[in-house]
């Protein structure tokens, strides 16, 4: 055990030294090759190359991690289960005729519509409330807490909440205990289609509400006081002020929050894996792919096809987000 730890630490140390050596040596070589001369054109050339030495490693690593694998996955999605022979589009035609895939798409769409929207609304409401209450900062820190927990950790905690003991009166799961207390009948909620999807979404909403709250809270504090005072003088009600004065002014931030959560939601995997593993009609794309590739099926063609579908479905939101970033950068 301790031997393994030492070897891991040594590997990290080698990595650190390697990186430092790269920056040192590459700069020294640049200086040696183009010289330390102060002749303008050489100096210009040297200073044009230098930034690439600095950015280079980061770009190279990203290229290796991202660009190559994406094309590899695309390539594999046109091959058979063992990646031996080309099968054209047959993985895709199979996929679009597969009933489980239809359910999966429906679920992903539900996640996409419900989770970012509810997280944003709850975050906004709580931000407004906490701003106007005593010890609001501490309350906000508590509400933010789930955000720090990993999705897997959160899932285990919520498994307690949804736990079902079987057909007995003493239910230790909080949800079932509440249901019984109000005269209802305890159920195995996670195995009850459609409801179970919502229960899984609650976990992500629980995590993301704090995130939305912090961002929207900062935006709310940026709303100029004069605009509110002017509205009050004009006799606007509080509801009118909220919807007609405050909301339009923080709309840009609301969009940031919504898209950030939306991108996260499309990738959702850990929660479904830990809670139901896609059983009982709770499957999502990422977990479906995982099933086809690694669990039992071992069909890398179909798994890759699912991965490609997932990537394509993220692209519209991604482009939208990047366009927004570009505009913001131009505005500076």
């Amino acid at each position: 055990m301790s031997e393994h730890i030492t070897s891991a630490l040594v590997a990290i140390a080698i990595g650190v030294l390697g990186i430092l050596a790269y920056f040192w040596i590459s700069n020294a070589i640049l200086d040696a090759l183009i010289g330390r001369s102060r002749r303008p054109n050489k100096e210009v050339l040297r200073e044009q190359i230098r930034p690439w030495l600095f950015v280079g490693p980061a770009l190279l690593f990203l290229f290796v991690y991202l660009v190559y694998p994406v094309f590899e996955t695309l390539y594999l999605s046109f091959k058979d289960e063992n990646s031996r022979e080309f099968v054209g589009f047959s993985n895709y035609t199979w996929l679009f005729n597969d009933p489980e895939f239809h359910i999966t798409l429906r679920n992903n769409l539900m996640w996409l519509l419900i989770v970012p929207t509810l997280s944003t609304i709850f975050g906004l409401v709580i931000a407004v409330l906490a701003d106007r209450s005593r010890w609001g900062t501490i309350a906000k820190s508590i509400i933010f807490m789930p955000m720090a927990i990993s999705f897997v950790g959160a899932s285990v905690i919520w498994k307690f909440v949804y736990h079902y003991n079987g057909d007995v009166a003493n239910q230790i799961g909080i949800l079932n205990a509440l249901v019984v207390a109000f005269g209802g009948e305890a159920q195995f909620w996670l195995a009850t289609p459609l409801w179970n999807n919502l229960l899984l979404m609650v976990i992500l909403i629980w995590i993301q509400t704090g995130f939305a709250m912090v961002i929207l809270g900062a935006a709310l504090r940026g709303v100029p006081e004069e605009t509110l005072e002017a509205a009050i003088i004009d006799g606007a009600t509080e509801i009118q002020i909220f919807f007609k004065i405050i909301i339009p002014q923080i709309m840009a931030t609301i969009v940031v929050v919504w898209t950030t959560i939306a991108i996260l939601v499309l990738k959702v995997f850990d929660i479904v894996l830990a809670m139901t593993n896609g059983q009982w009609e709770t499957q999502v794309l990422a977990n479906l792919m995982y099933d086809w590739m690694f669990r039992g099926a071992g069909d890398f063609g179909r798994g890759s096809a699912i991965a490609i579908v997932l990537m394509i479905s993220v692209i519209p939101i991604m482009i939208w987000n990047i366009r927004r970033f570009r505009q913001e950068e131009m505005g500076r």
Partner: protein
Amino acid sequence: MARTTTSSRKTFNTVLAWSIGLLIFFPILWTILTSFKSEGQAIADPPLFFFFDWTLENYIAVQERSDYFKFLTNSLIIAGGSTLLGTLIAIPAAWSMAFVPSRRTKDILLWMLSTKMLPAVGVLYPIYLVFIELGLLDTRTGLVIVLMLINMPIIVWMLYTYFREIPSEILEAARMDGASLRSEILYVLTPMAIPGIASTILLNFILAWNEAFWTLNLTAAKAAPLTAFIASYSSPEGLFYAKLSAASTMAIAPILVLGWFSQKQLVRGLTFGAVK
């Protein structure tokens, strides 16, 4: 906005805000409380809140059953190592983009942003194959590399937004005084950049610590970090309730403490600096 709120209204808001806060915190609190109960008391009806016989027996049992400290060490090495290496590679990149921007800088940054938005499932299998080829499967070194890669865009972006807040006049002044590039970085830039670098490291450590997709897929018994530890406990059937709670508490406790102090960093990083 505060001025428009009357006192009784404020009390109402306070009660409501705190009720929501406690409601949201309750699952965590309940898990922590249950972890200190005996198995019998954990399933007592009506449920016991604070007045039960506090015990550490569950923690001891969990450690004996699945060696918590092995997973903890793995998490520390993987999160720490990937953060360290990633930051070292990212600092020069972010520095040059913030202070010596070229026409391509914006495009590079946006491209990095887009890589972080792509779902990891799309690249999993090819990387898995590469890992088999290189013998990196289920090794800490392999995970350090992968987590460094997936968080690189966030690190570069975070550092870039922090570095850009440093007034470039100061660097020019140092250059005028004849400072070399190296001493410019070491003595001028670094001291001013340390708060930003520290925030970036904190954020990245938390992200790497919580990463489950890659750690679950690329590890088995040897290099598995805490995320895998919790996942192995994710089926309550056949396990005991209080022990399961102890396992979850042990898994989330370190990050809860860290998370409390890093709200700002988390938010800034996850929005790529759009929200400061």
